């Protein structure tokens, strides 16, 4: 299905996704959006894994497995993060990251 798609396309896509995620994480103030940015970063990594696996080592499955692991971990992480965010929201009725600066000196 992807026979004709060169590896560089995948890499360009994942790089764009990665930096979109980083940009989102650094700039957006909403915790949910930041979480979504993290998901973007993770998914860009997943794309890389799958692409490299498929094109460089078609006989192996490690890249696929790793991607599945990442998806599982990301799900768990997202649930924990959202739980934390909900708790924070309950406490201070806000999910702006700049309000969350209690953890300093």
């Amino acid at each position, binding site marked *: 299905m992807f026979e004709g798609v060169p590896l560089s396309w995948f890499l360009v896509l994942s790089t764009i996704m990665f930096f979109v995620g*980083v940009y989102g*994480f*650094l*700039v957006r103030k909403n915790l949910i959006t930041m979480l979504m940015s993290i998901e973007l970063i993770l998914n860009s990594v997943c794309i890389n894994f799958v692409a490299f696996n498929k094109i460089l080592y078609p006989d192996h499955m490690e890249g696929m497995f790793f991607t599945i692991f990442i998806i599982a971990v990301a799900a768990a992480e997202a649930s924990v993060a959202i739980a934390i965010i909900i708790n924070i929201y309950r406490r201070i009725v806000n999910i702006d*990251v*700049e309000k*969350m*600066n*209690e*953890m*300093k*000196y």
Partner: protein
Amino acid sequence: MFDFSYTIWIVLIPFFAFLLIGFLGHKFKPVVSGIVGSAGLFTSWILSIFTAYKYFFDVGKIDGVYQQIIGYHTLWLRFSDTLYIDMGVFIDPISVMMLIVVTTVSLMAHIYSTGYMKGEKGFMRFYASLSLFTFAMLGLVVATNIFQMYIFWELVGVSSYLLIGFYYERPSAVAASKKAFIVTRFADLGFLIGILLLSYYTGTFDFLTLTSPTGPAIGTPPTATFIGMSVMTWAMILIFMGGAGKSAMFPLHIWLPDAMEGPTPVSALIHAATMVVAGVYLVARMFPIYVTVPIALQVVAWVGAFSSLFAAVIACTQHDIKRVLAYSTMSQIGYMMCALGVSGMGGHEGLGYMASMFHLFTHAFFKALLFLCAGAIIHAVHSNYMYDMGGLRKFLPITHITFLIACLAIAGIPPFAGFYSKDEILVAAYHHDTALFAIEYIVAGLTAFYMFRLYFGIFWGKKQDYHHTPHDPPLSMTLPLIFLAFGAMFAGFVPFSALVTSDRLAFDIHTEWIIAIPSIVIAIVGIGVAYMMYLKPTQIPAKIARSMSGFYTASYNKFYIDQLYLFITKKIIFNNISRPIAWFDRHIVDGSMNGISYVTNQASDKIKGFQSGQLQQYAMVFVSGVIALALVFIYLWT
């Protein structure tokens, strides 16, 4: 050879008495303490008499020479193979003589105190301290080595401290006790350094080795010098400094007059007859070494002579009878020191040594007697001051007679004890140095004057209105007076030149009338002047005082030596050394420690800004870091 090892008990019995009284005294009535103390001392006294008899007249002499015997010794502390401290009993003529003096006077003081201190609150404490003192003093005189002497030297110092401060609720007594201890302690520092020097160069503490003519100190003295004087001279001068402190020699004498704050029996025992002559005893003990270092001996002579004159002048102007006696003690000890200083070694050359010991012996009797009489007088009139007294001869007949005997003895009127010993000192000084002789001669006259000033002022003069009639003290107090009066009368007849001499060989002396007659004359002149001035209240003393008002005031104020010391200690040491050090410690040393912690704190305060709590800021730094590293790796790491 006769076994002298029992002599250790002479020393130990008072110590056990001290322990007994100290630990169990409060369980019994006070009088029990007095009995225990006196009984213990009586045993020591008997043993001392026995020892003296045995030593001098039975077994002590071999081929005409009195032997130096180590009666008992045991190792106490070992520093190295050659330096170690023994505790023991050294028996030779001077130590046996001192045993007699100390036990006799101490016994008299013990008996006297049962009457004098009756009803005092600290009766038990008093006897405990008295026993401790006697133990320490006996340990000092029988010391076999210089370190044992130093140990007991300190112990007599502390028992003196405890006894001067006996009336501890009285601020003056507390101050006096403190002063006595610290001044003598300062002198002891010199003593200690002297011991260190001496022991380093000779490799021993032992008196027997030190004073032996072939020993490391005399036979092969060290040749090292320090600032122009041989180390032996330094050592002996420093050791003499210790002796001068204990014996209240100028300028370390300031504690002695103040020490009169203690109970009078204490003054008699410690500050007249025994402890204060420890310095003389020390010099006598080391005398064979002193003879080899003439400069040190010269120092001894001049310090002694100057002190005797200085104290005699002050004694003429004091009103407190105990202080007069204190200065008189200082003056008489100056005499003894001077006699040692002018002495040589062996035979008639050693006349000064013999005279000094002789004077020490007789002085103990008459000075203790004077103090005990003063105690009886104070007991009767409840005042220390001459101007509160007068005409007491009718009320205190026994005290009067005994006091008169003591005054005659100290003034040097034959046939009382003082005449003989003082005469020998004058002869020795005359043959050595005319200047010293002149000083001592003047002092003899002054002594007669101030003693009879005291005598006439107290027992004659105008009669005071006493609140209640003064009366002679009880038997327990008069008995010691009578006993000591006999001593003051007859101690002069002891043939000292046959018993206690510098080389322990007997030699002949004869009274040199060319010295003796002038000395009697000046004593009589002194008495005569006192008679004219003080028998009846006259205007003469006041007139003389006015005519030399500057000198009189200076003498009355003890030549301001006390003020000088106060200035040095209070102003210089306390305010200008100790206080700045305390400040320096708080602010500079500790301040720099606090400064380090302050700097650390500030640095942390500056750095902590990084930890802002802003999540995205951290992430920004992180990402830029990663990018920077990536760039480094890509472009620079080739």
